[in-house]
């Protein structure tokens, strides 16, 4: 169906006709046609340069040998070497000396903050003050000592983690596993309340002291002062990980506790772990209380 020439515009029509209405067959503007041809040209060039056409068992790999995975691996490597340079100061055998270097805190604390918030704050809180089940890092109460190299070691291997050298500490389930009888447990609860300076039943606490000496002091030390050797917390202060009231202590004695700190040596490199170690110490040194 060939269209006729429209007499007013001197343009051919498409030849279609709807109740006397006809359509001009105006060509697509040259700019659009050029853009289309350019796009086709670019696509054809990409086919040659980059991986493109599949065939049964493989695909054309392109002249540039481009691989998105190789590209990202290279970009990540570049980023790492930049960070290695920027944080080279943290790769030193002497952690104490590093901690006392002037200006290091001012320079690096904000950067380490990002690392902390990504990896640590979920449990220990953005302010490092911990939350239920997860210890406060700013106070002076430690399970495995607050020495820098001990903090660093905890970060590396974790506590009760799946790292082969993990620190290990488990409070047995004295109630559930029937190590102690029910009345013995309630007596020990009263004793723990007494040594932590809380309201308690005097005679029960007296009985509890004996049971404590036989069953608990091995890890928690005489009088419940705690000990770094077994990662057992002090029971004579006012800091608690799982709560320090009668109900919480009873739950701990009944069901035991074995808090887990993941090992970070596989997710973070040595410098990053060292940075976080200092970050924890800095936050602790700000805490004026205890």
């Amino acid at each position, binding site marked *: 169906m060939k269209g006729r020439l429209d007499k007013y515009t001197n343009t051919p029509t498409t030849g279609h006709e709807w109740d006397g209405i006809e359509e001009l067959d105006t060509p697509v503007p040259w700019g659009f046609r050029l853009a289309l041809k350019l796009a086709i040209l670019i696509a054809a060039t990409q086919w040659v340069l980059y991986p493109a056409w599949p065939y049964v068992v493989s*695909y054309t790999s392109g002249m540039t040998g481009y691989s*998105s*995975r190789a590209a990202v691996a290279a970009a*990540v490597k570049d980023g790492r070497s930049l960070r290695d340079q920027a944080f080279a100061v943290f790769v030193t055998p002497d952690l104490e000396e590093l901690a006392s270097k002037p200006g290091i805190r001012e320079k690096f604390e904000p950067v380490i903050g990002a690392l902390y918030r990504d990896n640590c704050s*979920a449990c220990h809180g953005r302010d490092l003050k911990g939350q239920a089940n997860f210890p406060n890092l700013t106070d002076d109460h430690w399970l495995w000592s607050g020495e820098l190299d001990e903090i660093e070691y905890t970060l590396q291997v974790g506590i009760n983690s799946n790292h082969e050298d993990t620190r290990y500490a488990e409070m047995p389930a004295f109630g559930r596993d029937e190590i102690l009888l029910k009345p013995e447990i309630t007596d020990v609860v009263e004793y723990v309340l007494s040594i932590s300076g809380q309201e308690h039943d005097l005679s029960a606490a007296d009985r509890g002291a004996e049971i404590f000496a036989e069953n608990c002091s091995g890890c928690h030390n005489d009088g419940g002062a705690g000990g770094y050797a077994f990662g057992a917390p002090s029971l004579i202060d006012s800091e608690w990980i799982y709560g320090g009231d009668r109900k919480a202590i009873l739950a701990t004695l009944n069901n035991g506790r074995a808090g887990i700190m993941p090992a970070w040596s596989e997710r973070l490199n040595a410098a990053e772990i060292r940075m976080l170690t200092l970050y924890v110490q800095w936050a602790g040194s700000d805490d004026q209380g205890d």
Partner: protein
Amino acid sequence: MSAKHQKLERHGVAFATMILIVASLGGLFEIAPLFTIENTIEEVEGMRPYTPLELAGRDIYVREGCYACHSQMIRTLRSDVDRYGHFSLAAESMYGHPHQWGSKRTGPDLARIGGKYTDVWQVAHLENPRGVVPGSVMPGYAFLANTRLGTTHLAGALRALRRAGVPYTDIQIEYAERHAIWQADKEAEYEDSLVDAYGTNVNVRDFDGDPQRLTEMDALVAYLQVLGTLANLDDLVLEDIAR
């Protein structure tokens, strides 16, 4: 307009057929070859099918629509790799039917969340997200800890997945229900049976903090804790997986 095209336009069936052929070209070139191209799925040590408990957790993950806000796909971008770890491999989701790659991140990517946080944290966070992450917009899933995990369907689920190509063995299918119960058993008396069936890389413990009951929380946390931990990425050679 060519005369041939005009003829085609006037034959409904012929025209519809031509549209179908043209529209399927995209799939023909972009999807179909993936089934025959040899390096679509990388060869990686360590990948195994999900244990029945992990699978039950995965079903809960899908049921609750976690994929709507969490992706499981670390893209080949430096920002992704820096934040979440090694980019995801096709092999890591080869036993996922359907895969949970996702395309939306209201929450963070979960492809390598396994082991990053403890079970206690995962449970606390699922029960009350804002309790541990101030400002989080994630809904709470406290009911999971109070919902007993249904296990009777697991053997059937494994059988169905075997039909879809997941290499579950007869033993794994036969023991599906027991394996699910044993994996969340703190006393771990049957650990050997799980290890025999699924290898040493199986977390056997009570996941939800309530050793008395097997709950949906056990299953979901078991699933989360295995994400991204199976493939042995240390032995990968970039040249082998470069695409």
